[in-house]
């Protein structure tokens, strides 16, 4: 059932993200042309047009980031907590499957948007030599990290990817939990959702600062091991936070669902 939910969730979101990536690709190509044009400085008109294209390109990158976030919030709100919830919550699927479907798709779009923005930057400045240089730089950075800091470079990259994925999921779950609580009230659902989100942020900040000041670990580790330990603890802390928000979300949807 989860695979079917994922299929339809991707279908619902791809109709927004697909065209957006297409526009970003076109603007990246145009930006590439504009950069070359601005280099030549042939005429004032062409310079203005080139500048305008670069502005649109920047705006599109910002739009991709913002829309990815807004889409994640809006899909949860309209598809599960709005009128469409009458269809979704009467499907032969559990609340857990509904939340996982939303979560997985959102994290995939976060990753896709990050890749799209990086590719857009590469396309805009594309030059065969730059790309060749970048590959060499990446290899050198990896080698230097491994050699100088004695850190397992590959492991470090893997840990970073896992941390990004878990943090993205936790970010989504924090929004979900705030909306699930906010929409359980009879009135002012959106306002209360925002209020609970702010409350979660404050609580997380307080917990984070308190644990940082009171942290008195004496693990007798240093250098590379300390970096790996720090990454591991960050991943674990993010996962625990995400798990708390997951429980809040699913329990609210199971016990206190209050569809509009």
């Amino acid at each position, binding site marked *: 059932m989860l695979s079917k939910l994922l299929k*339809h969730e991707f279908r619902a979101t791809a109709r927004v993200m697909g065209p957006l990536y297409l526009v970003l690709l076109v603007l990246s190509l145009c930006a590439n042309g504009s950069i070359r044009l601005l280099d030549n400085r042939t005429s004032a008109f062409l310079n203005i047009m080139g500048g305008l294209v670069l502005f649109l390109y920047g705006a599109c990158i910002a739009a991709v980031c913002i829309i990815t976030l807004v889409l994640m919030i809006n899909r949860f709100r309209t598809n599960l907590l709005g009128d*469409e919830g009458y*269809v979704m919550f*009467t499907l032969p*699927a559990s609340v857990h499957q509904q939340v996982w479907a939303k979560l997985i798709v959102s994290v995939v779009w976060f990753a896709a948007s990050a890749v799209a923005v990086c590719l857009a930057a590469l396309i805009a400045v594309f030059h065969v030599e730059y790309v060749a240089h970048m590959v060499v730089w990446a290899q050198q950075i990896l080698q230097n990290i491994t050699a100088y800091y004695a850190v397992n470079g590959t492991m470090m990259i893997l840990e970073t990817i896992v941390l990004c994925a878990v943090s993205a999921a936790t970010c989504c779950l924090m929004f979900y939990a705030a909306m699930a609580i906010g929409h359980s009230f009879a009135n002012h659902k959106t306002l209360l959702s925002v209020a609970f989100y702010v409350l979660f942020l404050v609580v997380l900040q307080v917990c984070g600062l308190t644990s940082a000041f009171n942290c008195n670990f004496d693990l007798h580790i240093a250098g590379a091991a300390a970096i790996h330990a720090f990454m591991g603890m960050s991943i674990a802390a993010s996962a625990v936070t995400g798990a708390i928000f997951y429980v809040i979300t699913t329990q609210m949807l199971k*016990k206190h669902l209050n569809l509009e």
Partner: protein
Amino acid sequence: MENLENKDLTAGQADLTAENGAEPEIAPVFPEREAAAGGSPILECRDLSKSFGGTPALNHITLSVMRGRIVGLLGPNGSGKTTLIKLANGLLTPSEGVILIDGQAPNKESRTKVSYLPDRTCLPTWMTAVQLLDFYQDFYADFRRDAAEEMLTHLNIRLNQTIKQMSKGTREKVQLIMVMSRAARLYLLDEPIGGVDPATRDYILSTIISNYNPDAAVVISTHLIADVEKVLDDVIFINQGQLVLQSSVDQIREEKGMSVDALFREVFKC
């Protein structure tokens, strides 16, 4: 199907005509359903209560709905009809008591047996009719796609038309078509004829009668009694969250000598 529909509606109307005279006709209007009725109830409420912040919406309701029956869940606005249907779908959790679908509490398994029409149109508006068909076919093994496509074609709805492009009335019909195209065990229809014109009411009622699974129970929640009376086997009256009456339509006509509509007006007289 068409013949059954005409036969049923005509028979229902004959009953109503008889009731205005001396002797109401008691012969079973739907012989297939009479045969299917019996066994364990498909929907059962035991001492069921639901409160919203201290305000009771349902108050210790005990009732059962048998298979093969078309049941009218009747009551004035705010009587608790929608709450009861939401509880049966697991959209709300009971404050007290239990509600059972085919012997089990509402869960993802029970949802394979229940086809639910909410009291509002809630189809995703970005979907086209064909995407909606895909959606229902994917999630419900009992979805009869050919029947749904036939009804959509009958209404001249293009399959590539989005829900957003349809009028409010067409959206309601499309939603009903999706719900009635399932071979479910229990159909829960919340206000299926509320807020639509008389011609659409006829279309909706004939779609329900023509397409439901005869072994299944149909619960129709409404306060427009006169329009649905002709298709009902049983009625449940609820008011202010309490069960007022559960009876067969024939019994009401025999014992009270009046139509369900007349009895409703008498019971809920302001």
